[in-house]
C-alpha cells in the first residue's frame, strides 16, 4: 500500500511537465481590471457599497467608449470578509485573469494581505478606503485614494479637544489593523495636546459582549469614548453602554459608515460623532449628480465606500489614459502622478507616499441619520 502511495504521488508530481501554462494570451481587446471586496461575510456592507461604486464607474466609462479605445472588463472576487481569502483571490486574478491592475480593499487587514502579492507581481493596486498607513508602505505599486489614519486619528482628537472632552477612554478592536492604527494615532495627538487618556479596553471582531469592558470604562468616568472599530461591533457597544448607563458620546472613524450601524444601535448612537470621507449632504453639483446616478442605478443610498469605490476606478482609468498603455511600470508611474483629480470625495492628489491628501468630514448622528458637521483639511 505504501509503495503504491509513493508511486501514485510520484506520478502526479512528475506529470507536472505535461501541464504547460495554458496559452491564454490575455484577451487584448479589453482591459482587464480586478477587484476584490467583501461581498459576503461580516463586513459585507462595505464590500457591496464599494463594489457598487466601482461598478458604476466602469459602466460609465464603457458607455463613453472605454479607455484607450478598449472596454474595461471588471472581474470581481469575494473575499468573504475573511483573512486568507484576499491573498488567494488576488493571486488568482493576477495569474488566471491577467488583470492589469487591482482595485481593493476597504478593510486595511485585507489590503495588507493582498498588497505584497501585487507588489511582487508588479501589478498596481489601488485601495479605495484602507486607512492604515502600512498598506502603501508595502511598495511603490500600492496606492490609495483616501486619507490615512494618522490624519483621521488627529482629526478626531482635535474635534474631541475642541468640544472640551478632555478625558477619553478608548475601546479598540485588536483584530483589525484599522482599529489598532486609528486608536494609536488618536491617542498620540490627543495626549500630546492636553488630553487625558483614561484607559484602553480591547475586544475582538465577532465579540458580542462588551459589558465587562464598558463597566470598567464607566468607573473611569470619561467625557467621551473612542470606539475605533467597525460598525458591526460599534453599534452593539453603544447599545450596551447605554444599558449600563454610560451616557457619554462615542467617537468613531469611517468604519462606522453603514446603515447597519443605526439598525443595530437604534437610539443608542444619538449624538455620537464620526469622521468620514464625504457627506451625502454636500451640495456640490458633482456629488449631487453622483448621488442621483447611484440611487437610480442601485435603488439604494450610496455612502463613502461607494464614492471611494467610484473614485478609485476613475483614477485608474485616468492613469491608463495618461500612460497610454496598461503596462505595469508605466501605469504605476502614471497613477503616482495623479494630481488634483476631481473625485467625488474631493480633489485627489497622490503624494509621495502614494496616499491621497484630502480633507475629512465630521458627521453627527441625529435622528438616526448621519448629519454633516464640519470639514477638516489636512
Amino acid at each position, binding site marked *: 500500500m505504501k509503495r503504491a502511495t509513493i508511486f501514485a504521488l510520484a506520478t502526479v508530481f512528475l506529470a507536472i*511537465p505535461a501541464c*504547460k501554462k495554458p496559452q491564454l494570451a490575455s484577451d487584448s481587446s479589453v482591459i482587464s481590471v480586478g477587484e476584490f471586496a467583501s461581498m459576503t461575510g461580516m463586513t459585507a456592507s462595505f464590500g457591496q457599497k464599494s463594489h457598487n461604486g466601482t461598478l458604476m464607474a466602469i459602466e460609465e466609462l464603457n458607455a463613453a467608449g472605454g479607455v484607450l479605445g478598449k472596454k474595461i472588463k471588471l472581474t470581481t472576487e469575494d473575499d468573504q470578509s475573511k483573512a*486568507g481569502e484576499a491573498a*488567494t483571490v488576488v493571486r488568482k486574478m493576477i495569474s488566471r485573469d491577467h488583470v492589469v491592475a487591482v482595485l481593493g480593499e476597504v478593510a486595511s487587514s485585507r489590503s495588507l494581505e493582498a498588497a505584497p502579492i501585487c507588489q511582487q507581481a508588479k501589478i498596481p493596486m489601488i485601495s479605495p478606503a484602507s486607512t492604515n498607513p502600512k498598506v502603501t508602505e508595502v511598495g511603490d505599486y500600492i496606492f490609495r485614494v483616501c486619507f490615512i489614519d494618522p490624519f483621521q486619528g488627529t482629526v478626531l482628537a482635535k474635534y474631541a479637544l475642541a468640544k472640551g472632552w478632555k478625558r477619553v477612554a478608548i475601546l479598540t478592536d485588536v483584530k483589525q489593523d484599522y482599529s489598532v492604527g486609528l486608536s494609536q494615532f488618536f491617542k498620540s495627538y490627543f495626549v500630546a495636546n492636553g488630553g487625558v487618556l483614561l484607559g484602553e479596553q480591547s475586544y475582538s471582531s465577532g465579540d458580542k459582549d462588551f459589558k465587562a469592558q464598558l463597566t470598567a470604562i464607566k468607573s473611569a468616568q470619561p467625557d467621551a469614548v473612542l470606539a475605533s472599530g467597525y460598525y458591526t461591533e460599534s453599534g452593539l457597544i453603544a447599545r450596551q453602554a447605554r444599558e449600563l448607563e454610560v451616557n457619554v458620546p462615542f467617537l468613531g472613524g469611517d468604519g462606522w459608515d453603514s446603515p447597519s450601524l443605526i439598525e443595530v444601535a437604534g437610539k443608542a448612537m444619538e449624538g455620537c460623532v464620526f469622521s468620514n470621507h464625504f457627506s451625502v449632504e454636500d451640495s456640490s453639483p458633482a456629488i449631487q449628480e453622483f448621488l442621483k446616478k447611484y440611487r437610480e442605478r442601485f435603488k439604494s443610498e450610496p455612502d463613502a465606500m461607494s464614492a471611494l469605490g467610484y473614485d478609485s476606478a476613475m483614477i485608474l482609468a485616468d492613469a491608463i489614459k495618461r500612460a497610454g498603455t496598461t503596462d505595469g511600470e508605466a501605469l504605476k508611474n502614471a497613477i503616482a502622478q495623479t494630481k488634483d483629480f476631481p473625485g467625488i470625495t474631493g480633489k485627489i492628489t497622490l503624494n509621495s507616499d502614494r496616499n491621497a491628501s484630502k480633507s475629512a468630514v465630521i458627521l453627527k448622528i441625529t435622528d438616526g441619520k448621519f448629519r454633516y458637521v464640519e470639514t477638516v483639511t489636512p
Partner: protein
Amino acid sequence: MGIRFAFFISLIAGAVVSYLFTGHPEPSWTVAQLDDYLLNILILMGINVILAVSLNVVNGHTGQFSLGHAGFMAVGAYASATITLLAGKSLLGLLSPLGLMAQPCLFVTALLVGGISAALAGLLVGIPSLRLRGDYLAIVTLGFGEIIRVVINNTDTLGGARGLSGVPPYTTLGWTFGIAVFAIYIVGTLVNSTYGRGFLAVRDDEIAAEAMGINTTKYKVTAFTVGAFFAGLAGALYAHFIGYITPEGFNFLKSVDVVVMVILGGMGSTAGVTVAAIALTILNELLRQTEQYRMIIFALILIVLMIVRPQGLIGDIGKLLPRKKGGA
C-alpha cells in the same frame, strides 16, 4: 529493498523536476511553463497530505481522537515564521558565507524549528490527555487547539489577532513534495514496524494492551508528538507559501478539515488518507466560488459517511466495523 529504491527514485526525480520548474533561482526556460494557479493547488495538496498523514498517526493508527490538530499547525507556522521573518535578517547575515545555500539553510532551520516546536506542543497536549478517553479526549484536544489560538491572538510580537504578514515565500513544490514523501515514508515505516504494532494495539483495546505489557503511555505520547511534528512542518510550509498567517486560519474549522480527510480516507490507512487529501483539495478548489456550499457538502459527506461507511472510502477494513456497545 524495492520500497526504499522506489522512495529514493521518486524523491530525487520529484525534487529535480520541482526545482527545475519552480526553484530559486529560476531557470528562465522552464519556469514560464508552469501555471501559477496549478502550482498553488499542487502545493496546497502536498500540505494537506502531510496534515492528513500526521493526524492519521493519532486518530487512525492509535485511536486517540484529536480535534486540535490545527493548533500544532499553528505552532509550526508561527515558530518557523519567527525564524525567517522576525529573526530572518540577522540570521541570513550569519549564514551569508554560504552564498547561494544561505536561504535554503535558513528555510531548513525554520522548518525544523517549526516541527520541533509543534512536537513539543504535541508532547504537552499528549500528557494530560493520557488519562482521557473518547469524547473527553476529543474535547480536550479541541480545547488545547483553541488555547493555542487564543494565546497567539494575544501575543503582539506574533502579530496578534491581525496576523503576521510578509513571511518570505520560501515554499516551493520541491520542498512540499519532498516533505510529503518524507512524512508518508516515516509514518508508514513507523506504523508497520514491530514497534508500530503498539499503536494499533492501543487503538484496538487499550486495557488489553496494557495488560499485555505494552506501555500505552509511551505510545500515546509518541503518537501525539510525531503527529504534531509533521503538522508543524505542514504549518511552516503553509506560512511560507501564503505569506500571511492569522490565528483564525488555524481554528477549529481547520482541524475539522483535516479530520474529514482522515475519516474519508479511512482511519489507519496511509494510502487512503493521502488520496483523500488530494481529492479534497481538488474539491475545495472546484467549490471555491461557493464557499458556503463547500462546507455544506463537507458536512453532508461526514454525516453520510458515518452512517453508510464509517471505515472511509479506502479504509482499513475490519477496524471500524459496527460494534455493539453493551450496557449490562
